[in-house]
């Protein structure tokens, strides 16, 4: 078999940063090749070069032995038969599946779209992929996993023989992930070459043949997945040994004191959750496990005042919350949340690190009654750059340009700059690399040892089990189980609660 992709001495520079340094490796035809590395290692940049998003680089990209230089992602799809399935699902919700798949290349009959041909062609592809939906379905009605399939169908529609997947499982349930893997297996059988990027190492072992590891923009090595271990992969990625598994290094810090008590919280208009009651103790890490869509985030949004409280009672340190509860009041009562959708709701993309860290605690950086003092904001930002080891340590750097783990730390620094003592983490390690994950776990332990109380919403079972002192399990908007002892944390039992089968 020949080489599907060859990278030869690829160098890429952005103003002031050398992001890819002399990258050379190749991908065999018909293999599933993993591309691994921490956030900021250069994986996305390399994919962007391969798919024509970045036209400016040094070195050469060869496809099937021929040098290519794509001008745009479209050029790559059309002339290189190479497609990408993105981490974020990118679809037009109000159009049909067929229209999404063929977008820009619709079959024509004269000046009009030939809808019959479109739907026939696309239905054939969907059948090929074992999809249980039709070309005429409106995308809005599909699940996240089904929407992901649209991107794959699109690649096949364009006769791509190389498809790269950039964290395709990020928004999929475990069942959808299994379905995706079956499709990938099938694509492989059809001779399609696959480049696979993921932070989930177990996925790599499940479906990949070989793995190339990048670190700080440099090529580390290419490994045969069958001949390696998880530890070896992590070591190659991080450059040192890190535990990928969430675990506790200090004993439970929880006290008897109840800092948050929720009684009968119900979403009477949207029906997203019903009759939610639980308690949070000082110094506790309370896990919230459930499948995607179990209603956990919706509950948390009410607790922090992002959505109105409709029915039920919430007590913070034994004092009920006021009627017109909002996020500003929540902040003054000491409760805040790190949202799951970091990119869209986590921070201001137009603001610098310093501004993003300061925004919730501006009253601490005053000069007189009315004016803010930039130098105090700067000092505060620098303090947390050190304490949380945020990189790069540049206050004037735009947060949007940081890696996922460091963005998460900037948001954490924002909350630590305030006086809140109840912090809700919603999927804190989603899209975060192994080393940053371990650091975030360590920071959580540090927070509880300072007497703060944490709620950790997680859809990753090992994380929920590894971190929590107690574990609340939700299914379809209800609490189906509360496990109060770590010895009871059994993954089968937890999953059973999570799918609602507790009877």
């Amino acid at each position, binding site marked *: 078999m020949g080489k599907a992709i060859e990278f030869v001495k690829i160098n890429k520079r952005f103003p002031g940063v050398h992001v890819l340094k002399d990258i050379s490796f190749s991908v065999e035809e018909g293999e599933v090749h993993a591309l691994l590395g921490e956030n900021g290692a250069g994986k996305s940049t390399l994919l962007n070069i391969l798919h024509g998003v970045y036209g400016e680089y040094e070195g050469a990209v060869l496809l099937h032995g021929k040098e290519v230089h794509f001008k745009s992602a479209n050029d790559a799809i059309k002339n290189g038969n190479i497609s990408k399935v993105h981490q974020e699902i990118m679809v037009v919700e109000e159009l049909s599946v067929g229209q999404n798949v063929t977008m820009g290349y619709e079959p024509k009959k004269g000046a009009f779209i030939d809808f019959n041909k479109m739907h026939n062609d696309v239905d054939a592809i969907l059948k090929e992929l074992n999809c249980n939906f039709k070309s005429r379905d409106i995308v809005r009605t599909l699940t996240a996993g089904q929407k992901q399939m649209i991107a794959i169908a699109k690649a096949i529609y364009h006769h791509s023989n190389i498809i790269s997947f950039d964290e395709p499982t990020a928004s999929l349930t475990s069942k959808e992930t299994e379905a995706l893997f079956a499709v990938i297996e099938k694509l492989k059988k059809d001779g399609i070459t696959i480049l696979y990027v993921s932070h989930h190492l177990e996925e790599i072992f499940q479906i990949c043949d070989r793995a190339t590891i990048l670190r700080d923009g440099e090529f580390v090595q290419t490994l045969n997945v069958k001949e390696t271990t998880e530890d070896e992969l992590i070591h190659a990625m991080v450059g040192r040994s890190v535990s990928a598994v969430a675990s506790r290094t200090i004993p439970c810090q929880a006290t008897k004191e109840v800092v948050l008590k929720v009684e009968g919280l119900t979403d009477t208009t949207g029906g997203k959750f019903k009759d939610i009651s639980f308690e949070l103790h000082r110094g506790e890490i309370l896990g919230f496990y459930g499948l995607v869509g179990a209603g956990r985030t919706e509950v948390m949004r009410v607790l*922090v005042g992002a959505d109105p409280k409709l029915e039920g009672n919430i007590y913070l340190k034994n004092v009920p919350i006021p009627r017109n509860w*909002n996020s500003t009041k929540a902040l003054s009562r000491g409760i805040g949340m790190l949202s799951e959708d970091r990119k869209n709701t*986590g*921070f*201001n993309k137009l603001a610098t690190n310093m*501004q993003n860290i*300061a925004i919730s605690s501006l009253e601490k950086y005053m000069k007189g009654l*009315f*004016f*803010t003092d930039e130098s105090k904001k700067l000092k505060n930002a620098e303090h947390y750059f050190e304490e949380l080891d945020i990189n790069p340590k540049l206050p004037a750097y735009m947060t949007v340009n940081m890696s996922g783990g460091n963005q998460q730390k900037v948001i954490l620094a924002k909350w630590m700059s305030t006086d809140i003592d109840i912090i809700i983490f919603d999927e804190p390690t989603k899209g975060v690399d192994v080393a940053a994950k371990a650091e975030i776990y360590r920071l959580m332990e540090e927070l509880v040892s300072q007497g703060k109380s944490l709620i950790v919403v997680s859809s990753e079972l090992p994380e929920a089990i590894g971190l929590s002192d107690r574990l609340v399990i939700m299914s379809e908007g209800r609490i189906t189980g509360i496990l109060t002892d770590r010895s009871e944390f059994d993954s089968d039992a937890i999953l059973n609660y999570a799918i609602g089968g507790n009877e």
Partner: protein
Amino acid sequence: MKNFYVKYKREILVFVATLILCVVFTVLNPQFLTWRNFLTIFQQMVLNGLLAVGIMFTILTGGIDLSIGCTFAIVGIAVATCTVGGMNPVMALVIGLVVGAVLGLFNGFLVTNLKLQPFIATLGTMSLYRGIAYVVTGGVPVTNVPDSFRNIFNGQIGESGIRYYVIVMLVVFIVAHVILSKTRTGDYLYAVGGNEEAAKLSGVNTRKTKYIAYIASGVCTAVAGLVMLASLGSAEATAGIGYETNAIAAAAIGGTSMAGGRGTALGTFVGALLLAVLKVGMVVINVDSFWQYVVTGLIIIVASYFEYAKDDFAAFLARHKN
């Protein structure tokens, strides 16, 4: 100094463009470069400058206030009626500001409490306020505003020819600059415009912040209405029609992002200055005023294209250097 350049790159660029424009006009007619003409330019920019700095507050939050031209008319009518009726001029002035604030407050209510899209909400109040102006006056102008009121704005400093209303505009810009760059309110305005949901989750009072933006817009507009009334001595319901477009143009040329979260008082000032230089310059070189529209349109397009394309442009230059 280097920091100033990095922070205000766009503003400096627009200012340089304005200077170039001045040079061109001076070459075409040396009369352009006189103290008198200089004063004319500043007098020309006062109304648009005040309206632009107001509307900028709403644009910063990701909104817009299309009703400013109509608020402008209502304030003029209200204050004219008061002063003609013999009210103390300072009292009337305060009433004018309050009327502007209340009209802005109502816009804020529609946008935050009723959650209407700002464009639609203020499109509605634009017609509503204009209608009120017509109904109240019956279409008849209110005239003979006493000099005691007019002199508050029309007087000049000694014999310099610098009118008080120019000073008033400068003060409004300075206050806006200080609010945006040195107060918590400023930080919150940028945070809400940059990412409203993130700001909300950060505990920022997004409702209050948006109210402040629309009230600021109403108050700045009211100041413009007062200046207009003082210089004309009369008020009518048709005043200010279409003024919102020029105000948006000044803010946009100065680098205010229509998506919110980006823009400065300094930029809006320079944007309004550029438009005034253009207006006065065209008159000085005897170009038909109709051409003003053509040139203004082109400048808006070029300015925003430059903002959009500057990275491409830098890459283009870098490529051709080698």
